[in-house]
Each structure stands twice: as structure tokens, then as C-alpha cells.
């Protein structure tokens, strides 16, 4: 009953979304406020309605209704309650419903704002948002329905249908298949919601942009209205990416956090388009420039959000043939194509209205450097986009699939990341409007002096790798420039306002949160770069087979293999656990417990043991594909220098974000 109810609600919401789209457009053209208001209320209703449907599915998941194909495929009796609930996004059909649910939450919240000053935007914001929602609901209703049930036909076959086929009876499996063990990690529990939140929140600024294009109100009002939405979307997307990295590091057992897998790149691409947007939108607000460019970037971000979902949901990454056979692949393709073409056509139509109010005068002005930053981000985006789609093109043209793997991305994006770091250092020192080498030089020499000490210290410490030397120097440069910027601001306030250091620092930051929050985010990025450089440049690894009592060495550490135990765990899995003592320079540092778990359904899971410090991580994996015995236990050990700074940088990033996005009460 609940299954039919949940499905019925989705159908009603789909129709409501279509009504919202059409009445908003009709209201705009007929200049009827009542139709627009009706569209707004219809969109508002979508959130409570989809909530009913999603909560219904959560109830069915939590209570083990295995007659639903989706519940059967992602849960079983042994899973704890929180995993049964989060199984909502553990499979394709559920995750699409979750996507639509979050989308409706943002859409409803957006309709609740005061529209008095921006009434002309309303019909198109509602139309674009409700159309996007209707598209996702159509995918769920027609192709990926999580409420489909299992039926036993007269001939004894088990078939999945929403409604009972003639003569069939409901099939009730006594146990479900359960969620893939790899997905039962906190990183994977929170990673998809964060990513989806980021994805759906970008629909709102896009909807405002389209509204601005259609109505011709092309000043910076739409960017100001959507600033917070954009920041929220960017935060969630960033956190989602970091959680995904942490999950890969903790669970996949290959000693790294990022494998340049197309699925990872699909999530990175909207970030690569939205980060330059966040920067260049400031130029539009401050200088009235780059209006066309900002429109292009937000259209690109929206398209990449849908494209990323398409890549991961359509099966196209496995093979172009899988895409053609999948039901939702072509639908996605058509939707992306239509929305992109319409958006670009609108942009071309308004091209002249979007011309800059002032022109750029200096190659070294802050806006010029921001534009260069945009180009570098787009350079990384092009590399990623091309790397993901080229294997598909190759398959279509030659019939042969090829792999575009990490070496390609590292080589192609490395210099661009380096240039971005250099810009993070230089841009804060240039002025809006006009800067010359002389003016920048006057500001840059102070942070440059301590920066130049860094490569010397590194060379003394026997660092010879030029990438590391350059990378760490750039990190230091950004940190010193940022400190200098804070110091300059604080000194200025102390001189003019007579405040003490702390008060001057707080007031300075509070009065321009976006700038100083942004600086903190810059520091976060380069702190993350320390971790990335550490693992990419200095990672060492070894694989050795030991007998109990033997030891192995890696990067100055000695790992002594003490014991091996095999035992059943309460949830039925068979655990194989090794104990290793870790020594450095003869000093005992602690024990490590790498594990290999075999679940009752035959699914294996390798759980690495990690000894983590600020200097390095020792990452030990019990190599599960080899035969494990007391006399022959294969271990794979990675030494990952500095990788912890990647996670520390992520925490600083959130802090910088909070500073940047905190509501500015005093200015109201």
C-alpha cells in the first residue's frame, strides 16, 4: 500500500511540476500575476509531497519490505538502522529520488523569499527550477522507480513491476541482498548527500541567470541575489569531494585518495566551473565587467551538474553501448542538449546588453588576474572533460576503448594548478582597476623575502625534487602574502582607528568577510596542496610476504609481523586480522591492525591500518587476493608523507567559508 502511495505521490508531484513550469511561462507572457503566483505555490508544494514519498521509502527500507526490488537490492536484516536509512542513496533509483527530494527542498525554500523587488525574475526562476525537477521526477517514474515490487507469475518466474501482472502474486523474499560493504563507511554515508546538495543548489543561480537573460534585467542583481546560494552550493560540493577522497583513502585500500576515475572527475567538473564563477562574479559586482562571461560560467556549471549525473547514472562510462541500452542515458543526453542550446541561444540574444560598463585597463589589475585565474580553471576543466569523453569518442570511431588514466591528468593539470597557486599569491596584492609591475613589486617584496628562504631550507633538508621545491615555495608564498594582507589591513586600522591588534583583526575581517574569508580559503587550498604534493611526489610503497616473526622496512620504519587471527564477527563476517608492531630508529611506536573481512554474501572488504601523524601516514593493507596464512602473509605498505595536511586544509576551508558566508548583520 505504502509503495503505491509513494509512487502515486511522485506522479502527482511530476504533474504539479509540469503545471508550475507551464503556468509560470504562461503567466509571464500573459502578464498575469495570478498564474505566476499559482506556479510559485505549486513549486512550493513539491517539497512536502516528495518528502512524503521519500519518507515512505525510508520506512520501507527500515522495516525490511523486501517485496520492493529496491529495498531487496540495498538492505538486509543485518544492517544497522542508520545504514538502512542511508540506503536511500545506496542505489540508482533511490539516489535519483533523493536528488529530486533535495532539489524540491531548495526550490521550495527559494520560493519563500520576498520577491517584491525582483518580481520579474519569479516566473522564469520558477519555470527553470520546476522543469529541472520535472525532468528528474520523470526519470524516476518512467525508468528508475524505487517503488517497483517483485511478483511471482503463474509460470513461477520472478518479475519486477509497479502493478501486479495478470495472475501474479506478490513475491516476498525472506532476506535482502544488502548494501555493498564498500558503501558502509561514514565517508560514503555523507559523501553523496553533500555532493547532491552542491549539485542541486547550483540549479538556483542558474535559474536566476536564465531569468535575467529572458527578462533583460542583466545588471548584477541576479548575482547579488544568488551569492549565498552559490556559496552554499560550492561549500557542499567541496565537502562532498573531500568526503569522497577520505572514503577512497580509508576504504579502497590502494593507498591514495584520488584515482582520476571518471566518476570522481564527473563530480570535480562542476567545481572547476563554479570556482571561477565565484571569482569573476566579484568583478561584475565591483566593476560591472564580465557579465557575458559569468552567464557562460553558470550555464556551464549547471550543464556540468546534469552531465556529471548523466555520466554516473547512464552507464556511459562502461561503454557507449551500455549508454544506448540504458533507459535514462538518452533522456539525459537530450535534456542536457536542449537546456544547453536554449541557454546559449539566450546568451547570444542578450550579448550586447551584457557588455561591460567599464573596460579593463591594466594587465596586472586584480580583475585581469581574476580572468587569468578563470582561464586556468577552465584549462583544468578542458583536460578533465576531454580525458573523460575521449575514450567514448575512441570507442565510437575505432571500436576500441582506451584508458585515459592518472599519468595523463597529472601531467596535464599539474602546471595549471601550479600557476593557480602563483596567482593566489599575486592577485591579492594587485589593485582593482589599475596595477603595474611597480605597484605590485612594491607590495610583493615583503612576503617574497621569507618565501625565498623556503627552497633553501628544503635543499638543506635534502629535498631535491624540483616539483616539490617549486610547489612548497608557492605554498609558502601564498601563506606569506595572506599573512601580509591581514597584517597590512590590521596595521592600517590600528593607525586610523587606534584599535588594538585583536580588535583590529576582528573588525577588519567582519567588515569585509568575503575578502578575508576568501584569503582563509586560499590558505586552506595551499595547506591541502602540501598533502597532495607529499603523497604525489614522495609516496613510497612495498609489497612483501612475511611469516610471523619476520619484519619489513619502509622509509625508516620497521614493521614487525607479530600475529594473525581469524574470527567471526557478530554480524556474520569472517575477520582475518594481522598485528604488526611499528618501530622507528629502534623505538616502538605502536601496533597496526590491517584487516580483511569476508561477508556472509561472499563480498570481501580490505580495511587498511593507518598510523597517521602530521609528518606522514603509514598505510598497511593485508593483501586479500593472496593466500593468507601464518607463514605466508602478503602485506602492502605505503608511506604517505604529509597527507594529513589534505584533511587539515579541508577543515580550514570550512572555517574560511564560514567567515566568508556569515550573514553581515551590522550592514543591514
Amino acid at each position: 500500500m505504502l509503495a503505491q502511495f509513494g509512487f502515486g505521490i511522485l506522479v502527482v508531484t511530476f504533474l504539479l511540476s509540469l503545471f508550475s513550469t507551464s503556468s509560470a511561462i504562461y503567466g509571464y507572457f500573459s502578464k498575469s500575476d495570478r498564474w505566476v503566483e499559482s506556479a510559485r505555490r505549486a513549486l512550493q508544494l513539491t517539497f512536502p509531497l516528495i518528502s512524503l514519498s521519500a519518507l515512505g521509502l525510508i520506512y520501507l527500507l527500515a522495516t525490511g519490505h523486501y517485496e520492493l526490488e529496491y529495498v531487496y537490492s540495498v538492505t538486509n536484516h543485518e544492517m544497522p538502522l542508520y545504514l538502512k536509512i542511508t540506503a536511500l542513496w545506496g542505489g540508482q533509483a533511490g539516489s535519483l529520488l533523493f536528488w529530486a527530494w533535495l532539489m524540491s527542498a531548495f526550490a521550495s525554500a527559494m520560493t519563500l523569499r520576498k520577491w517584491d523587488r525582483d518580481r520579474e525574475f519569479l516566473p522564469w526562476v520558477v519555470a527553470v527550477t520546476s522543469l529541472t525537477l520535472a525532468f528528474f521526477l520523470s526519470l524516476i517514474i518512467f525508468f528508475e522507480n524505487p517503488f517497483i515490487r517483485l511478483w511471482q507469475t503463474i509460470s513461477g518466474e520472478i518479475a519486477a513491476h509497479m502493478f501486479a501482472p495478470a495472475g501474479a502474486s506478490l513475491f516476498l523474499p525472506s532476506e535482502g541482498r544488502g548494501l555493498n560493504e564498500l558503501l558502509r563507511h561514514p565517508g560514503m554515508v555523507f559523501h553523496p548527500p553533500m555532493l547532491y546538495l552542491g549539485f542541486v543548489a547550483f540549479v538556483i543561480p542558474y535559474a536566476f541567470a536564465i531569468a535575467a537573460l529572458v527578462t533583460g534585467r542583466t545588471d548584477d542583481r541576479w548575482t547579488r541575489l544568488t551569492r549565498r546560494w552559490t556559496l552554499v552550493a560550492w561549500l557542499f560540493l567541496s565537502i562532498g569531494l573531500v568526503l569522497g577522497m577520505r572514503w577512497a583513502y580509508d576504504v579502497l585500500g590502494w593507498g591514495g585518495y584520488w584515482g582520476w576515475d571518471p566518476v570522481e572527475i564527473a563530480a570535480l567538473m562542476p567545481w572547476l566551473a563554479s570556482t571561477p564563477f565565484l571569482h569573476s562574479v566579484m568583478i561584475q559586482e565591483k566593476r560591472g565587467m564580465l557579465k557575458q562571461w559569468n552567464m557562460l560560467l553558470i550555464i556551464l556549471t549547471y550543464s556540468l551538474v546534469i552531465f556529471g549525473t548523466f555520466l554516473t547514472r547512464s552507464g556511459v562510462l562502461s561503454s557507449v553501448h551500455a549508454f544506448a541500452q540504458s533507459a535514462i542515458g538518452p533522456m539525459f543526453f537530450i535534456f542536457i542538449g536542449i537546456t544547453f542550446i536554449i541557454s546559449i541561444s539566450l546568451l547570444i540574444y542578450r550579448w550586447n546588453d551584457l557588455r561591460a560598463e567599464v573596460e579593463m585597463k591594466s594587465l596586472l589589475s586584480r580583475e585581469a588576474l581574476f580572468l587569468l585565474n578563470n582561464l586556468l580553471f577552465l584549462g583544468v576543466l578542458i583536460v578533465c572533460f576531454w580525458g573523460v569523453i575521449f575514450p567514448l569518442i575512441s570507442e565510437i570511431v575505432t571500436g576500441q576503448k582506451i584508458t585515459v588514466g592518472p599519468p595523463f591528468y597529472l601531467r596535464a593539470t599539474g602546471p595549471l594548478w601550479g600557476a593557480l597557486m602563483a596567482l593566489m599569491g599575486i592577485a591579492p596584492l594587485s589593485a582593482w582597476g589599475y596595477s603595474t609591475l611597480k605597484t605590485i613589486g612594491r607590495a610583493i617584496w615583503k612576503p617574497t623575502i621569507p618565501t625565498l628562504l623556503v627552497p633553501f631550507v628544503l635543499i638543506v633538508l635534502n629535498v631535491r625534487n624540483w616539483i616539490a621545491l617549486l610547489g612548497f615555495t608557492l605554498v609558502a608564498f601564498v601563506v606569506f602574502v595572506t599573512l601580509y594582507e591581514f597584517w597590512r589591513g590590521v596595521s592600517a586600522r590600528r593607525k586610523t582607528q587606534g584599535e588594538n591588534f585583536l580588535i583590529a583583526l576582528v573588525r577588519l575581517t567582519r567588515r569585509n568577510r568575503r575578502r578575508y574569508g576568501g584569503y582563509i580559503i586560499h590558505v586552506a587550498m595551499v595547506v591541502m596542496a602540501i598533502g597532495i604534493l607529499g603523497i604525489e611526489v614522495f609516496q613510497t610503497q612495498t609489497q612483501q610476504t612475511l611469516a610471523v616473526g619476520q619484519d619489513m622496512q619502509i622509509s625508516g620504519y620497521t614493521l614487525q609481523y607479530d600475529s594473525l587471527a581469524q574470527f567471526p564477527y557478530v554480524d556474520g563476517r569472517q575477520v582475518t586480522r594481522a598485528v604488526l608492531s611499528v618501530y622507528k630508529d629502534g623505538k616502538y611506536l605502536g601496533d597496526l591492525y590491517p584487516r580483511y573481512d569476508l561477508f556472509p554474501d561472499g563480498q570481501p572488504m580490505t580495511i587498511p591500518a593507518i598510523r597517521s601523524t602530521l609528518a606522514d601516514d603509514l598505510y598497511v593493507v593485508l593483501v586479500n587476493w593472496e593466500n593468507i596464512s601464518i607463514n605466508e602473509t602478503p602485506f602492502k605498505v605505503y608511506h604517505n608523507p604529509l597527507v594529513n595536511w589534505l584533511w587539515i586544509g579541508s577543515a580550514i576551508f570550512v572555517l574560511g567559508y564560514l567567515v566568508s558566508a556569515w550573514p553581515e548583520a551590522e550592514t543591514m
Partner: protein
Amino acid sequence: MGKKAPANHLFFTILLLFFIAITVLSFKSVRAQEPTPSDDEVNAIARQMFCPICENTPLDVCPTEACHDWRELIRQMLAQGKTPSEIKQYFVDHYGDRVLSEPPRAGLNWLVYVLPPIAFITGLLLLFRAFRMWKVKSTATFQEEVSASKPAHGNEYATRLEDELRRRN
């Protein structure tokens, strides 16, 4: 016929010696590689490869039985004295280019390497062109604007900062 017999004999003797020589030589080459190639030596090559089934998982960390067999094959080939490029070529010949972590620089694959730099350089050129156009356009108002927004340094920084903050509020 009677004359042909010793010639045949000689031929077969040479053939036999040839095979014995090959066997001994290959045995020697195995001996020369002893001890058996280590996991690290195998992984150094496997890291640069992907099996066609386990998508996007490098061969050195892939837990499937098929990938285990591939690694053992790499070990055997190393033991036979094959170089890393010969080993990779063996897998390419049998399973196609997709086993390599990046496409070989040939034919259509060149596009992978060439297109991103071309796109980036084009973007850079367009940016510079746009700058030049902007500069020409704004020459008339240039001096006026410069005097209005003089480069800030020294004590002027404080004034500029306060000015910017005031404008925000």
C-alpha cells in the same frame, strides 16, 4: 638415397643441438634473474596498467583473480628477462591499447594530447586580444581614471582600504 642419409642425420643433429642450446640459454636467463622477481618489481609494471574488466582500477591493486593471474604472468615474463616495455607490448597485443594507463601516441589518440593545450593557448590568445581591444577603447578615459584611482602604497593603502570597506557598506 644412400648418400642422403648422413645429410639428414647431420640436419637433425644440428636441430637437436639448436633446441638444447635454446633450452640451456633460456634456463640460464631464468637463473640469471633469480631470485624470482619481487612483488615490488611486478607492481612497478602493473601500476602502469589496467585490466579490461576491472574498470579504472590499476592492475597493482586490483583484487580480482584475473588481475592476480596477470600479475603472475608479469612475474614470469620478468623472470624470462623481458623488459617492462616488452611486457606491456605483450598485453597490448593480446588485449588492446586499453590496458595502458594512457593511450599510445599514435593515430586518433594524438587528439588526447594535442587538443587541451591548443584549447588553452587559444583561450590565452583570445584573452590577450581582448585586453588589447579594451586598452585601445579606454585610452580616452585612461588618464582621468588613473588619477582617480592612483596606485596605492605606503599610507595610501590605509585610505584605499577604508575606502573599499566604506563602499561595501
